[in-house]
């Protein structure tokens, strides 16, 4: 299943919530959708899930347009909204059973599918509980179960980890990894970026309705941090001397003291970094750690976004 978002634009009156964005992802991919509040993430996700219509542009699911053929597209998309199910007077099992029926599952197949999903999302113990009486984490599981009950190829999850306790978050992460192994194409938005780094293959960073960065995590990291940052820890307290020395060394810029470590930006390649290390050792600096610091999604997010909302 290939999901292609093409020149998507959504206006609410004079506000442009989504401004001509394009990206794509495939089966087995977990794509992170990152942006500050009001960036247009939920609107995009709702359009992919056929809940909203775009002002222009389209989303194609294996060539099927969500605008032209929403009923067909719906068979392929499972949507977990940021609002949790709030149906009154209905149990978890009845809720999941209803959606299995609504997606045309019949008889024994439906019973088995509902039971399998209850087991997968670990809600068997609460299946006879009223939906309204559940905690946020449990509702989130039910919501995920609802989206999975008819086995869609594409999963769109809007802030699924919001408000979950650490254990529930770990469980959710494991569930998503399992789903990716089952060849689902997953688009997930979250503000917990460290988690996204662990589970996502790709990322889309969006702000004010516009895409700032998109691609695989490695590509985005490389693109956003072209210079490698190197950290050095010394055995003794020769930090000032080291900074002085570094500033005179080729390929070194912006050497500074950060929490008793010396950080500098290496404008050269890995061989250049190696030469710098050799030079410092030759000049009798007592180095006990020389490492390249890795930027994560959080750093990139902070670098590329300005925190603007619409």
């Amino acid at each position, binding site marked *: 299943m290939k999901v292609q978002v093409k020149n998507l634009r959504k206006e609410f009156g004079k506000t442009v919530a989504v401004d001509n964005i394009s990206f794509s992802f495939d089966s087995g991919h977990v794509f992170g959708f990152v942006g500050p509040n009001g960036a247009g993430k939920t609107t995009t996700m709702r359009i992919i899930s056929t809940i909203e219509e775009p002002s222009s542009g389209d989303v194609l699911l294996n060539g099927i347009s969500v605008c032209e053929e929403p009923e067909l597209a719906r068979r*392929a998309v499972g949507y977990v909204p940021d609002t949790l199910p709030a149906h009154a007077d209905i149990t978890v099992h009845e809720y999941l059973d209803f959606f299995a029926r609504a997606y045309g599952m019949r008889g024994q197949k439906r019973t088995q599918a509902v039971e399998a999903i209850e087991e997968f999302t670990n809600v068997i113990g609460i299946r006879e509980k009223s939906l309204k009486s559940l905690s946020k984490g449990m509702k989130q599981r039910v919501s995920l179960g609802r989206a999975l009950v008819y086995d869609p190829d594409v999963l769109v999850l809007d802030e699924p980890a919001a408000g979950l306790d650490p254990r529930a978050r770990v469980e959710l992460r494991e569930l998503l990894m399992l789903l990716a192994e089952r060849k689902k194409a997953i688009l997930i938005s979250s503000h917990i970026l460290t988690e996204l780094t662990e589970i996502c293959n790709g990322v889309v960073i969006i702000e004010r309705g516009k895409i700032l960065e998109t691609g695989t995590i490695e590509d985005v990291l490389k693109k956003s941090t072209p210079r490698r940052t190197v950290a050095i820890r010394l055995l003794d307290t020769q930090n000032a001397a080291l900074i002085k020395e570094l500033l005179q060394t080729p390929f070194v810029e912006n050497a500074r003291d950060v929490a008793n470590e010396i950080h500098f930006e290496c404008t050269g390649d890995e061989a250049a970094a190696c030469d710098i290390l050799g030079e410092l050792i030759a000049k009798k600096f007592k180095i006990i750690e020389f490492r390249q610091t890795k930027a994560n999604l959080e750093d990139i997010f902070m670098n590329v976004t300005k925190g603007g909302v619409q």
Partner: protein
Amino acid sequence: MSVARLTNHFRNWRDWETNPIVIKELRQAVRSWTVTGMLLLFLIVLFITSLGFLVTESFDVNANLQLGGSMFSAFVVILAGASVFFIPLYVGIRVAAERKENDPDLLYVSTLSPTRIIFGKFLCGAYVALLFFSACMPFMAFTNLLRGVDLPTVFFILFFLFLVVCAANQVAIFLACLPMSRPFKFLFVIYGIFQSFGVIGTLVAASFSLMRSGIGAMMLHRDFWIGTLTCVLIGLALTGLFFVLSVALISPPSANRARPVRLYITTVWLLGGLLDLNWIWQTKEVQLVAVWAVITAILMFFSLLVVISNADQLSQRVRRKIPPSPLKRAFAFLFFNGAAGGLVWVALISVLTLLATTEILSLGNVWFPKTVLRMTTEQENNLFTISSTTVAYAFAYALTALFLHRKFFPKRPPKLAGLLAVLLAGAWAIAPSIVLFFLNQLSWKSVEGLQLGNVFNIFSLRETADLRPHQIFALGWLLLILLVNAKWFLRQAKTFRPPPSAPPVLE
């Protein structure tokens, strides 16, 4: 649905499953304290009322031979009050809650078709009504033992009341589906509550009247059944109309929303015409044609507003369903989304109704010369002039609004054209009176004078001779605006073709 699909559907009856919406809604209704509480309250009120009647009667020395009738009347009031007021409100609120503008319930993104969703909601309302009626029926049947009411009356009134509740449920579903903000929906609820009081009053009065005359005796007459069936058919036609409108409202904007509605209205219009003709033949009263003509006029007036609020661009999905054959395409043009086809459809029905009504009126006078309410030739001519002028004005306003929208507000949503048409008609009606007011010349006489362009003025003219200038002006304006819109119309008709690409298939 094709015949083959229909045959296949019935052949596999063992695989039929209940509408998921009905199962969900009934599960929720059974668990809901709103329904359970209301049902318990209803039973308590019925029980206390029965007890009150029986205890009061036990102190009376003389046996009351109408006790059953009196008790039944009280039960009808309670049942009508509970079912016409509570059940549609419950059904409407449940639909509206799932159709909040910013957070539509996810059931609307399931693969359930809009027809199944609305039918499920409707069936659930009918089941809840059945629950209330079942609770009330033993009490009502019991009144037959106390004399004063016969069993046919009991069941007939219950059946009629049930149909009214089902129709009210459908209207409530329609109102809940309207794409409005919460304050507007709240205003509609208040309006609906006031309307339900009127319905309850009418129902109770009709039930009392039926009880007095005794349905058992009337059932032997053919006229009773004809009248009953006509009422039931009109009720069903209205319920059906609200059903197709609700389905259209929750259908995706890319679907051909116009087709089921226009097909349904056309069918009802034709069948209604035939039914009316049958009534004219039976009663020999040609004036009955007015019932059909007036209902059609009201329907076409609202249709015209909706039609001009249609977008010009057809989605790919709708275009794929356009038949390639030119003859079939010309017919399909009337029943597809888009203002141009819709205008032709409204114009066809309006003109055919106008011609048929005039023809029936003139032929009726020949067929039934002894008819009580005969129209003179002059009255017939005036009626034709008034009707044709009204139709011409309606189209002139609509086409002018369409032109204004296209010319000056092309980026605004198409529904603005409908609003402009209403504003145009309203402004033209009010403006002369305002001018006369400031000139200190506003009087009843001036209102009755000729005001060209004001459609409402036709109905308040003092001199029938002034009808002719109105007719000429309306037709002239219509002709002019038709010419102005001709290029647009031709473009719409020319682009009404299926796209060359093949439809998508989900792997």
